[in-house]
């Protein structure tokens, strides 16, 4: 049953009331309120029910599924509802006239969709699409609302969060993997051989699982980071922030928790160590960035709180020289702070799209920003303006194939030996953006690496363009440059974790 409190009086609706087989308890998993005063409920019996909120009476009941209905979303016009169930199916209910042209309208279950294998925990209803989220996120355009066949009319599926779950200690060659309840620290293997393209080199040292750090309590880990030198490790859950000192002596690795961590207002959305591993930047949900100074042998103190963002900060990018810090807040504004004098430096001109990744170039201090609509800009922090290359890119426009990609850029890094190189990656490709090369137009092939490889050296020159794209690693969780000719790439095959998932709904099958 559910209780709902509309001020000033209380109406109690007994959802379980009319169920004879009331041996099972009915759980209402989601409710929605329509402007007409109708309460919509989705319950564990797989029903979507419409209640009169004043009388508390049941107006309509639709059993959409034999398993639980978990989530519910109503369209803005309130003529369509999307329901997510525990079998991974989503259903659309629409308010349709009983007779063609008639005034009386009824809710009718219209379309079933099955895009998920497990629970659909969240659904959303955009004007032209149904969005459902479980183990994957699916955007299903409503074909009747889409005007023409094109990019918008395509079903889109996202398996991985557009957040960084891996961090890399470049100097120490360590990788930190973030799982929902624990962290794993690995030392990368190495080789002494070289070879031709595509060759797998023999390892002279195997990768080594150094430490597994379990988070206490039921809370999920929000963010984590390992310092470039590999001696500091921090993570944050919804309520707490933890900092550890990692000590590698010989083969053994010890973790020591840093005591008396300054009281921060949790949760932290992003952690970032400075390039020299001297300080830690903590992006807080309250819109501030805390700068902590890391002290030897294992302590820290709060150095500064950078304010200016009105919403939660979710991305941070410090410059390699320790001079600048860029922070992205929930309202998509990018603030740049001067860390030398702890001053707010400037705000990057706002763009009406979410920032998916950003990084400051180590030698030029240009801020490279990737937006979720696949746009790329380069902003010079010292000059507080877009660079010439960025303006050229904007006026020229990005390649169509680049713009129509599904997954946003999640990480940007640079090649210290070649300032013209910007390295970017999303879930399906990694790209070396060479600013010294001409930009491709729509008539050229964007993903031309395999073509180039077949061409003789002399013929390649004319075909080269700025976007050097490699799609060899999929799904790509993380990519970073360790040194000028060493790239670390983390793949996470979907089957690896799909096979570990339990059955979506416990069903009795004959003979089992």
């Amino acid at each position, binding site marked *: 049953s559910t209780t709902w409190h509309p001020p000033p009086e209380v109406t109690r609706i007994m959802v379980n009331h009319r169920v004879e087989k009331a041996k099972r308890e009915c759980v209402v998993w989601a409710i929605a309120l329509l402007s007409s005063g109708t309460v919509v409920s989705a319950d564990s019996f797989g029903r979507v029910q419409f209640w009169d909120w004043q009388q508390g009476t049941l107006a309509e009941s639709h059993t959409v599924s034999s398993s639980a209905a978990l989530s519910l979303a109503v369209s803005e016009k309130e003529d369509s509802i999307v329901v997510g169930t525990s079998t991974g199916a989503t259903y659309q209910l629409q308010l349709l006239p009983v007779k063609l042209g008639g005034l009386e309208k009824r809710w009718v279950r219209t379309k079933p969709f099955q895009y998920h294998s497990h629970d659909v925990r969240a659904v959303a209803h955009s004007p032209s699409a149904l969005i459902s989220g479980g183990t994957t996120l699916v955007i299903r355009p409503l074909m009747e609302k889409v005007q023409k066949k094109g990019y918008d009319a395509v079903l889109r599926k996202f398996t991985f969060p557009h957040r960084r779950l891996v961090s890399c200690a470049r100097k120490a060659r360590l990788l930190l993997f973030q799982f929902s309840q624990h962290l794993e620290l690995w030392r990368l293997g190495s080789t002494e051989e070289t070879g031709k393209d595509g060759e797998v*080199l023999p390892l002279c040292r195997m990768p080594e699982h150094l430490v597994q750090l379990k988070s206490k309590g039921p809370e999920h880990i929000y963010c984590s980071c390992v310092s470039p030198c590999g001696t500091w490790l921090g993570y944050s859950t919804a309520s707490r922030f933890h900092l550890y000192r990692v000590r590698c002596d010989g083969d053994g690795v010890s973790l020591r928790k840093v005591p008396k961590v300054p009281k921060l207002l949790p949760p932290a959305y992003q952690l970032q160590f400075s390039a020299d591993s001297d300080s830690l930047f903590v992006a807080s949900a309250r819109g501030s960035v805390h700068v902590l100074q890391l002290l030897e042998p294992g302590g820290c103190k709060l150095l500064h709180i950078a304010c200016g963002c009105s919403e939660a900060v979710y991305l941070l990018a410090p410059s390699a020289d320790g001079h600048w810090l860029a922070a992205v807040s929930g309202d998509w504004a990018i603030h740049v702070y001067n860390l030398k004098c702890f001053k707010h430096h400037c705000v990057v001109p706002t763009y009406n799209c979410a920032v998916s990744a950003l990084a400051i170039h180590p030698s030029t201090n240009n801020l490279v920003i990737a937006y979720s609509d696949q746009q790329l800009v380069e902003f010079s922090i010292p000059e507080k303006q877009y660079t010439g290359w960025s303006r050229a890119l904007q006026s020229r426009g990005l390649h169509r194939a680049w713009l129509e990609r599904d997954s946003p850029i999640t990480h940007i890094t640079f090649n210290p030996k070649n300032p013209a190189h910007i390295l970017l990656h999303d879930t399906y490709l990694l790209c070396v953006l060479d600013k010294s090369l001409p930009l491709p137009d729509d008539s050229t092939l964007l993903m031309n690496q395999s073509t180039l490889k077949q061409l003789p050296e002399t013929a390649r020159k004319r075909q080269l363009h700025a976007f050097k794209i490699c799609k060899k690693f999929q799904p790509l969780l993380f990519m970073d440059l360790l040194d000028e000719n060493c790239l670390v790439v983390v793949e996470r095959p979907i089957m690896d974790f799909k096979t570990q998932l339990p059955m979506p709904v416990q069903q009795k099958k004959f003979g089992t």
Partner: protein
Amino acid sequence: LTCPVVCNFETHEYIAVHDDKVLRIWKNEDINLDKAFKATLSADVYRIHSLPNGGPVVLFKGGGVRTLDVLLEAPQQEIENVISDEVIRWSGAFMEGQQPVLIFTTEKDGDFFVYIQKPKLSSLHKYKLEQWESSKPLCFTAHITNQTVTLLCLCSNDSVYQVLIPLQQDTEEEEAEKEEEILSRSLLLNLSVSGSVLKGTSLVVLDKDHVAVLGSLAAPGKEPRECLTIWNTKFQTLQTSKELPLGTTGQLWCYEEKFFLTHGKVLTVIMYKCETSSLAAAVGKLKDSQTPDVSSFVNWNTLEDEKLVVSFQSQESVALKSEPRMNLRSRRSSAAKVQPENVSVGQLLLNLKDASTYVLESELRQLMAKAPTPDLQATIGCVVTALTDRCKTNPKYYPKNFLLQIVETRDLSYSLCPDLMAVALEKKDVQLLQICLQRFPDIPEEITYACLEAFLSISEAHLQSEDVNLDSVICYIDVEFDNKEVKTEIVENGFNAEMDQDMCDTKIPKKTQSRSDGESCPVGPQKAALLNAVLHSAYTETFLLPHLKNLPAQQAILFLRYLYYLYVKCSEKVNTTLPGIRSPTINQIMDWMCLLLDAHFTVIVMLPEAKELLASLHKFVRAQVRFYSELNKIEGSLQELQRLNHLRDSQTYSIEVLEII
């Protein structure tokens, strides 16, 4: 006769009682019972028990017991009445050491008593059996082990109970004062198996762990069936059962590892063998290889199915009398197991040799219906042989339908009735030949070839009237072959029924026919079905090839054309199989094609009309070979891709060289 006849094993005399009191004793050589030794006793005899080493013991209806020797010394001696007004229900005699022991049970007003008598010691013990509530004892049996009498009792509630009685060595004085002891029973076995209950009528103990029960098995919703069952009392399992559909008298005897029972009007002897019981054996998981000398747990072996008209009043006398003969027969049957039962069948067939056709057939039908399962095959083989023999002697006689019926309904083989197919060939009975080809697993290549030749030579017109099974062709062959309305189209395709007939008759086929390049079927559906039957039969190339060489050139070409047609049809499908039941497989088609070309290559090459056929066949085969080699290449590439993919997948960590241009 008033009690079963027994044999004195020491003197080899037979002892019978008639009119309750008159004892008769005779030997094997005595023919007339009236002239045999006669002694009249003073009391009524209940039964005589013959013990292997102790001589016969006589139990009187009053409960008195005498050994035969004692009795014969003074036949008119007075016999005491031990039981007052109880009635003897069952009795049994055993040897305990050198002492004969006689056990009998009596009934009075629903109470049952057990008496144990040792006639040589004149000791008598009386026990009362525990009150039997609702269940009534139907049958008793007992055995003595370790000074203890184990009395088994089959009760009306479908259970076997066990009563243990110690054999006491007490003196007479004590015995006189003894109160009658009450014996308690314990449940030994419940005669029910998965819902069905065995209503037992007779019970026999086989060894310490096995009992045999004769009775009717009643499952809910089914008619009760009489059967003989062997139960393992240790594991409470039904070891085996044998159905006795003709019914029994409810009596079962067991001597020397053989059961004797009346089955219908026949005395059936069944050998059995009990192994030491083990759990593995009880659940049927004993491996034969471990105990090679015991092939299975219980060996059923029907030795006798001769009609013995049971005219004796007592069944047991028959059992005993026939026992020596049984032994004899069992020896013979094991010696000549190949044709165990055909004495009577053979005799019958011999008798019928000159009988009229009608009598013969009806007798044979009867014989087949009666033949018991293990001998069925051999019997039917004999029947078919008898029929074919008659066909051979009488050219006008050919029981087509009867033969068809036999071949269709029974699992025959060529070796069982070697003449059948020869006769059918002679009579050109294509229908029977087709069925034989489909069903016999062991047709010699010579006969297969003869069938092929016959099928190819028979005219289509003749085949039209034959009732050939078209299952194997109906799914792929061009239908409406003789439909006149679509004749034009058919002619264009180079085939119609009449033309085909022409082709068989005339030496040189018409041009239209020679042009038929596998697009239409060169033979009618009946002939195609018959040829398919040939294609389906098993053969060895080396044995078939010499025969195949004898095939006339025209027929060889026709057959080749048909094979080519099948090959093209097969290749049309992705899975290269022809639809339909018993349609030839691509391998069979290819093998026959190769064989035929091997056998006739020189001839075919020389024949002008075969030239085009060979050319188109060559072209088609070459195209197929190319197609498959391309497919092989693709398969190889895909496998390599899969391998590479797999290689990459399996590595969770690797350092690779990646060139970005």
